[in-house]
């Protein structure tokens, strides 16, 4: 499948064109947030407080980077397991998030919410944090600095490689891929 270049924030029309298995190169701004930050997003929503960034049209990247060496902007920055964010995700999709980047499959609830709110899920190569760091051009901590590696970071990325694993049409690349290559326990 041909690689599609997309820019973030992401437009509704672009989302419609993305189907599972499509390799993408993402440029623009994305937000790094994982477990502890998600917990606080939900607390903020519960308390009707302002979220640290407007979520409409944005991409969340599930990652907690390693520290930057002097003279560099970031350390390794690969995806973490998305399933741990499943419980929080439907409410963030309702708040306007249009795409997530992570590794591993999503729960049925998240997949339903993706269809409902027209959002997609990208998989980046787990355990390739040094490689993925090469696509990060700028880093700024914008919230929850006390969380260290788990603080919310605004990342400016250029040609960040990922693949569409769930689209707005309810397809799932994990299921498709496994069904294609499974020989046992069918």
């Amino acid at each position, binding site marked *: 499948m041909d690689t599609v270049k997309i820019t973030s924030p992401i437009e509704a029309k672009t989302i419609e064109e993305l189907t599972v*298995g499509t390799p993408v190169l993402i440029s623009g701004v994305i937000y790094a947030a994982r477990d*502890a930050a998600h917990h606080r997003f939900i607390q903020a929503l519960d308390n009707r407080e302002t979220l640290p960034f407007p979520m409409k049209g944005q991409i969340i990247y599930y*990652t*907690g*980077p*390693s*520290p*930057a*060496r002097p003279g560099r902007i970031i*350390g*390794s*920055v*690969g995806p*973490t*397991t998305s*399933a741990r964010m499943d419980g929080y995700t439907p409410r963030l999709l309702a708040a306007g998030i249009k795409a997530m980047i992570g*590794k*591993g*499959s999503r729960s049925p609830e998240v997949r339903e919410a993706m269809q409902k709110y027209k959002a997609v899920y990208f*998989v980046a*190569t*787990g*355990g*390739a*944090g*040094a*490689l993925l*760091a*090469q696509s990060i051009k700028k880093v700024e901590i914008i919230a929850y600095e006390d969380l*260290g*590696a788990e603080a919310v970071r605004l990342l400016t990325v250029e040609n960040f*490689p990922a*693949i569409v*694993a769930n689209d707005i049409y309810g397809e799932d*690349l*994990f299921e*498709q*891929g*496994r*069904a*294609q*290559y*499974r*020989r*046992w*326990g069918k």
Partner: protein
Amino acid sequence: MRPIVPKLREIKASDITETVAQLCQRANFELDEDVLAALKLAQQTEESPLGKEFLHQIIENAQIAERKSLPLCQDCGTAVVFLEIGQEAHIVDGDLYTAVTEGVRQGYTQGYLRKSMVSQPFSARKNTKDNTPPVIHTEIVPGDRVKIICLCKGAGAENMSKLAMLKPGDGREGIIDLVVRTVDEAGADPCPPLIVGLGIGSTAEGAMLLAEKALLRPIGKPNPDPEVAELEQELLSRINDLGIGPLGLGGRTTALAVHAEVRPTHIASLPVAVNLQCHSARHKEARL
């Protein structure tokens, strides 16, 4: 009668600290040759084009990590330190566990590695900020040397570990069923292709430790017992028939190897522990 004075070889605590600090960094920057070789072989045999691409990225990642002293993965792991202490070795000028802990602190700080340890795990989850404490396993062995192995264990794979106290009657088939089911349910989350560590026998905690130690064996080196080696091979083939593939998006390479360690157990027991290792299998060792 003259008392027998054992000839003890002295090893300075500060040398242990320095060695642990270096091992933690090297483990995070340099993927071992056996892992790279297994990944390269998988890249040739993998049938899924997407799986091939992921394996290519994983290999390229290892090259970038080593060249730039960047961690292979942002999850630089829990530092699990195995100490094999010769009974004629004498640690001087400091306390052994303090020395190891200090080595982890220095290694993770000097190497700009991510600090992932939190205290009060069920409540405050406060980051200790230097990746301490390590998990330390000590074994007393013959000789006067100290062997130190640092295993930097990522949580994605560790989280998928399992212990089952099978019934003796479950036997070999029960083990196969448990292991294959564990890998199947873990799916994409532990970052396949995996190395599957198994501990069979002993007690509950003994089996878990065996499973983790099994991960330290060079990739694909079979257990010396032919019966166990055959079980390893059958499991590897069954696991790779699951179709999970690199990163769980389908393919033939779900595991690079299965390593099993077996010990005697109680007449009423058949403990089986499964410890999964992601493709970023990071461990380094040194002998002092």
